[in-house]
């Protein structure tokens, strides 16, 4: 019986087995091969190969940028005094977005720069407006970036005004959900959210968004809605920064920093 079946269908059975194992291989390698093929095919279709020039939308943006430059300069001065070196600015790589997630639920993008350009897993990714995500997979020419708006992503964050620590989680929209570590807060809508000093991925103080609403009654900790600065669904170019490379042994140190943020700021 089986012998007859095999005689009749052996070629088809082998073919199906080959296809299944090929698909399994692609799945186990997270589609790295497909991503490379996609990169190769779409390469001639990408006409603008240079990142767009800095765009200024209005006077308000200009004002804020100037204020930011001033604050950055001040910040740098303070950090030099404290003996901290800001390494985040060096070695940034502009990268075009060439693809998006192949389903409706996960929020990641594929960018056209990879291992060959020096991108590593864990590299933070930013765009005009602030943080957009971090690299979760690299191939030779492409990388996969988990967007900050993906529900699986959680990034340490804090409020600039009160230095309250928390973390933001995506909700697959242009709003994030921010949870705080403390119970009683003076959070108000309009507060600016930046990356936390205890973040393992991002340099501290990178802009994320603005608080839109706060639910103080939420259990066990207050929850806030954060409007993202970056236009997350309309991104075309992003900037990849070198991975922060927090070693496991450094974590204890970083944790100390995180537990006493007010003391740090006060000093």
């Amino acid at each position, binding site marked *: 019986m089986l012998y007859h079946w095999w005689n009749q269908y052996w070629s088809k059975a082998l073919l199906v087995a080959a296809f299944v194992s090929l698909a399994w291989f692609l799945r186990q390698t997270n589609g790295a091969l497909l*991503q490379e093929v996609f990169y190769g095919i779409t390469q001639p279709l990408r006409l603008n190969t240079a990142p767009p020039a800095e765009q200024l939308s209005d006077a308000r943006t200009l004002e804020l940028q100037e204020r930011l430059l001033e604050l950055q300069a001040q910040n740098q001065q303070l950090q030099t005094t404290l003996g901290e070196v800001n390494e985040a600015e060096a070695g940034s790589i502009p990268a075009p977005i060439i693809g998006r997630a192949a389903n409706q639920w996960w929020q990641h993008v594929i960018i056209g720069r990879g291992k060959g350009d020096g991108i590593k897993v864990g590299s933070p990714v930013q765009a005009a407006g602030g943080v957009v995500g971090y690299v979760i997979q690299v191939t030779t020419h492409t990388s996969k970036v988990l967007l900050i708006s993906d529900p699986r992503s959680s990034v340490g964050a804090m409020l600039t005004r009160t230095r309250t620590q928390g973390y933001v989680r995506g909700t697959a929209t242009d709003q994030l959900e921010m949870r705080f570590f403390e119970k009683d807060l003076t959070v108000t809508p309009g507060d600016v959210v930046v990356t936390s000093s205890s973040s393992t*991925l991002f340099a501290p103080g990178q802009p994320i968004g603005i608080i839109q609403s706060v639910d103080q009654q939420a259990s066990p900790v207050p929850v806030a809605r954060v409007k993202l600065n970056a236009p997350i669904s309309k991104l075309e170019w992003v900037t990849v920064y070198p991975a922060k490379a*927090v070693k496991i042994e450094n974590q204890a140190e970083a944790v100390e920093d995180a537990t006493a943020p007010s003391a740090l700021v006060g000093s």
Partner: protein
Amino acid sequence: MILRRLPRFRAPDPAFLNWVIVVLSVLACALLSLARLPGTQLADVGVNWLMIWVVSWSVRRSLLQGAIAGLILGLLQDALTASQPSHVVSLVIVGLVTALLQKQRYIQEDFISVALIVFAMAVLTETVFALQLTFMVQDSDLATVAAATGDFSLGDSLLDAESGAQTDPGWVQQAGYTPVEIWSRHQRVALSSAIVSSLWAPLIAYPLNLWWEWLDRSQELPR
């Protein structure tokens, strides 16, 4: 035709050509689903190209063939996105249900009916996936990536969890969709995906069906 004049090559050739077309069309669908072409998006929801392919394949085939196609394309979609929860489940169900419809008996074979089936299957796909999200682990692969690279704690949750534990251990939670988010998003995703996928379904289904019909008439259908 040339094939008629070369009878010796006539038997193996269309079968081989069929596999080439099958493989290339699947590859095209896989790559199309990475791109977000203008006009293929509705409310930020794209076309489910791989699901369209499974439907086009299964309407004229047996249950087993539909399930095998769902398995292979489900693995491919896992490769293109994330493997937990797996897309294999929803695409195998799509393959089985489409084959079960016994299309040739009840529904006239044209691209309007294919579009209708795609519409229903898109809703089914998203519903199955939403159920999987509700009851299964959401992509623990991210943690595996972190473990493989060693140096990082990928995602900031690990470090924050330790620091937060001393003040208020209550907040620590698993990242991922909450059930409320899943089902509010499901309505939007299912409807948009169904509309946009059924509009674009003929692009894949029509040429493939034309080819398989021709193949059917010229010889016994290779499986």
